[in-house]
């Protein structure tokens, strides 16, 4: 494998990781603040993508589509929080898993009811399409660079939000002690709705960004959801920093594993079976990574013990 190809694959891994981070950040924030496992986070991702596809279809504007995705996902998130989620905070994880599993069913089939069974069209704007030439002669799709940039901006924004702003202080206080924050006179239920909507908006943004280069279809959220869970578990639940590192680790492992393992296996096996077995191991790689991390750090890389 040439160096250029390797660099390109590393970029791909980072891009995939950054995309996962957008999903994982919301998930880990919601878990950290409210102690809630939200399986329906993938549905909010789907809502974002469908909203973006619908608005792009009507208006032809990608910017409007992004705004619509953020708004729709945040609204859906807030609505779900008000109607369902807030009844689950003092329940055990089991009830949360079942209730949010039920939400997946409702969201998926509801979306199918509204938009039909066929995938929707959503394309990247002309200004962002096509490749750019990077130093070293690497040709790389501009849009993927944009995703990396957006993801890193969001990460930076989240760090600032949590470290510097009033809301951030409340969020951190909420993580430490719910009664404490209530005693401080903060309206905790409002804070929770806000955090949930923020997490949902991030998922919606991810859905719209990714929807433009993937298929906008019912059920698109679940595979990403599982990966996002892998990410936050590796990073340590509740930690934004952990989510970022975990996302990059998962992104790189998945991309490089898929690209390198078959070649690696071919060094000591016949090519055809090396290909199948290499691909098989590559598809298991991130789960192996996760199990490995948890063996040595049972609360993830940056989790509170």
């Amino acid at each position, binding site marked *: 494998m040439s160096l250029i190809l390797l660099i390109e694959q590393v970029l791909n891994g980072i891009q995939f990781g950054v995309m996962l981070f957008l999903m994982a950040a919301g998930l880990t924030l919601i878990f950290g603040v409210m102690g809630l*496992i939200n399986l329906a986070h993938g549905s909010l991702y789907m809502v974002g993508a469908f909203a973006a596809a619908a608005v792009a279809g009507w208006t032809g504007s990608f910017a409007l589509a992004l705004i619509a995705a953020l708004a729709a996902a945040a609204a859906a998130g807030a609505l779900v929080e008000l109607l369902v989620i807030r009844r689950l905070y003092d329940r055990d994880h089991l009830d949360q898993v079942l209730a949010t599993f039920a939400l997946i*069913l409702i969201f998926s089939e509801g979306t199918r009811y509204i938009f039909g069974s066929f995938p929707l069209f959503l394309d990247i704007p002309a200004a962002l399409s096509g490749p750019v030439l990077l130093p070293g002669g690497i040709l790389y799709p501009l849009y993927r660079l944009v995703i990396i940039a957006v993801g890193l901006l969001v990460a930076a924004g989240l760090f600032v939000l949590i470290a510097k702003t009033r809301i951030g202080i409340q969020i951190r206080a909420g993580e430490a002690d719910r009664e404490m924050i209530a005693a401080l006179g903060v309206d905790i239920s409002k804070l929770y709705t806000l955090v949930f909507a923020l997490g949902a908006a991030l998922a919606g943004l991810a859905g719209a960004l990714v929807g433009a280069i993937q298929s906008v279809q019912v059920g698109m959220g679940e595979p990403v959801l599982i990966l996002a869970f892998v990410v936050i578990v590796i990073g340590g639940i509740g930690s934004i920093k952990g989510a970022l590192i975990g996302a990059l680790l998962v992104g790189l492992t998945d991309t490089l594993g898929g690209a390198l393992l078959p070649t690696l296996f071919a060094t000591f096996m016949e090519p055809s079976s090396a290909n199948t077995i290499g691909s098989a191991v590559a598809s298991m790689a991130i*789960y192996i990574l996760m*199990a490995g991390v948890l063996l040595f750090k049972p609360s993830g890389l940056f989790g509170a013990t």
Partner: protein
Amino acid sequence: MAREPLINIILFALFPVTAGVAMVLDEPFIITLMTKAAILALAGVGLNIALGLGGLVSFGHAAFFGIGGYAMGVLASHAQSYTPIMETPILIEGTKSMLVIWGVAVVAAALAALLIGVLSLRTTGVYFIMITLAFGQMLYYFAISWPAYGGEDGLSIYIRNDFPGLNTLDPIQFFAIAFTVLAAVLFIAGRLAKAPFGLALSAARQNPERVETVGVAPFRLRLVAFIISGAVTGLAGALFADLNRFVSPTMFSWQTSGEIMIFVILGGVGRLFGPVAGAALFILLEHVLGGLSDFWHVYLGLLLLLVVLFARGGLIGTLAGKETAHD
């Protein structure tokens, strides 16, 4: 106080009665549905040992369900094609004997549970949920990518396996087998909960520190519970494969784990007959709602949501009134 046992008896009797009536009315498909409910209930009873008794929220029980299924698939497919599974160092042949297949399924699932348990039980809470999910996904992708036994296509077994003295292809006879296994496992699980092991395990769920202080290691209790739980779910997997005469990686998918968990929660966590009620209700819903609309998942979702939000203690808990102490 006596209401829950009464509900249990009625619920349990409903299975053979329904199957019997269906036989008289010549509605074999109803019998097949009841068989499916009994087998899925069995999977739930398995999970309930870890989940209800031990408080171990495993989101990866599809792993054991799938292993049980593939134990059947692999053994029967080799028997079907008259090719040995391996020749060196010792000759191992496939088999069409249900009893042998059950044995292999239980042992294989127990071994997998031992391995997964040793690694997973070091973690707690959400981490435990997620690491069990991860192991399930590993097996799922493995099963899809491994070409030897059909990969994603799965394996078809053309004729149901043999049980001494019975015609297993006759729906009512196969129902009788599945129902008897369920009854036997329910009896054993009931004894287990009341035995010294059950007392200590359930105490470890309520308060691990307490159990440590009396000199018992929660880890060992949980590991053993996880193994028993996995083995029972594995047995259910073998039966399920035989019901469909087919196995595929779907049995390993995280949705399968979720569904088994739904049976348990729907019926009532930690209640012996909870999974039986849950599986029966789920099958009923699938059958009735599925006929009503292409979008029946919406109704299923709404119903599940209502159960979680407003019917705590599941179906049995709701019917039996206030929660009773486990004694």
